[in-house]
């Protein structure tokens, strides 16, 4: 923290697209100022872009902590929403939930379409899984192990073209 300036010139720094940052800024400014157009200096746009990037870092790290506390490995939308409250941006949570709900509704249709075309195996596994879960509602681990075993058995038989072990369990 003294006179040393550690300049991290990392060529891999991912920045947000300038055009989009500029659009967001200009849209907001056109709402704010009714007088006329406010200009935005190039350096200011860079500052906005950098700030947004650091915001993503900060929010990610917080969401990651929340995710770990729940002993999960995948950061999900809820973790992010909780993180927003932690870093004192609770006013974002409402509009974000609305945006997310919109997206989920749109995506339900797409997902159904994709599963019909490509993933018949997954569907059959899901059916079997559902059946298994009805009988014994314990941990999901045993079910996943069974699924794994089935897959391992099926794959080599598919590749080689039908060896001796063809287990068709219905």
């Amino acid at each position, binding site marked *: 923290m003294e006179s040393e*300036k550690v300049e991290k010139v990392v060529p891999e720094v*991912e920045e*947000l*697209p300038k055009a*989009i*940052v500029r*659009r*967001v*800024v200009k849209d*907001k*400014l056109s709402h*704010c*100022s009714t007088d006329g157009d*406010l*200009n*935005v*200096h190039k*350096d*200011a746009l*860079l*500052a*906005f872009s*950098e*700030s*947004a*990037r*650091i*915001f*993503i*870092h*900060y*929010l*990610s*790290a917080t*969401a*990651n902590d929340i995710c770990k506390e729940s002993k999960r*490995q*995948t*950061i*999900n*939308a809820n*973790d*992010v*929403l909780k993180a*927003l409250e932690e*870093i*004192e*941006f609770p006013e*974002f949570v409402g*509009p*974000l939930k609305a*945006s*997310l709900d*919109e*997206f*989920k509704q749109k*995506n339900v249709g*797409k*997902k159904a379409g*994709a599963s019909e075309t490509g993933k018949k195996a997954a569907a059959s596994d899901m059916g079997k899984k559902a059946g298994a879960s009805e009988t014994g509602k314990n941990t999901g681990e045993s079910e996943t192990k069974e699924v794994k075993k089935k897959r391992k058995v099926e794959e080599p038989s598919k590749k080689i073209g039908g060896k001796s072990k063809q287990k068709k369990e219905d």
Partner: protein
Amino acid sequence: MRQAGRYSGMLCGGLSGRSGPHSLPLARIKKIMKKSGDDVKMISGEAPIVFSKACELFIEELTQRSWMVTMQGKRRTLHKDDVASAVIATDIFDFLVNLVDNNSSNSMDNPEDISS
């Protein structure tokens, strides 16, 4: 849980074209997220979407506060210094203070100007 990988792949492929509210590219957001920490490994498909919108809201908030500084100075062009002032003046932007410090030390030779 493993569906998250396929899910996000689908999303990136589907949303790279035209889709309404999600303007910031999800793939890039994911890359930035992964750089925020070594232990950030798996990100659900929905998370970048929330991030994209959160970023927009954040930029809007920062823009508004910076604009207020510009207006106070009775100027028509929003400068980086206005952004810096907005950051310093707002508690919740404390995490940006380092960025502002770097900028001010690079661009401004007389830090006393800010304090006056």
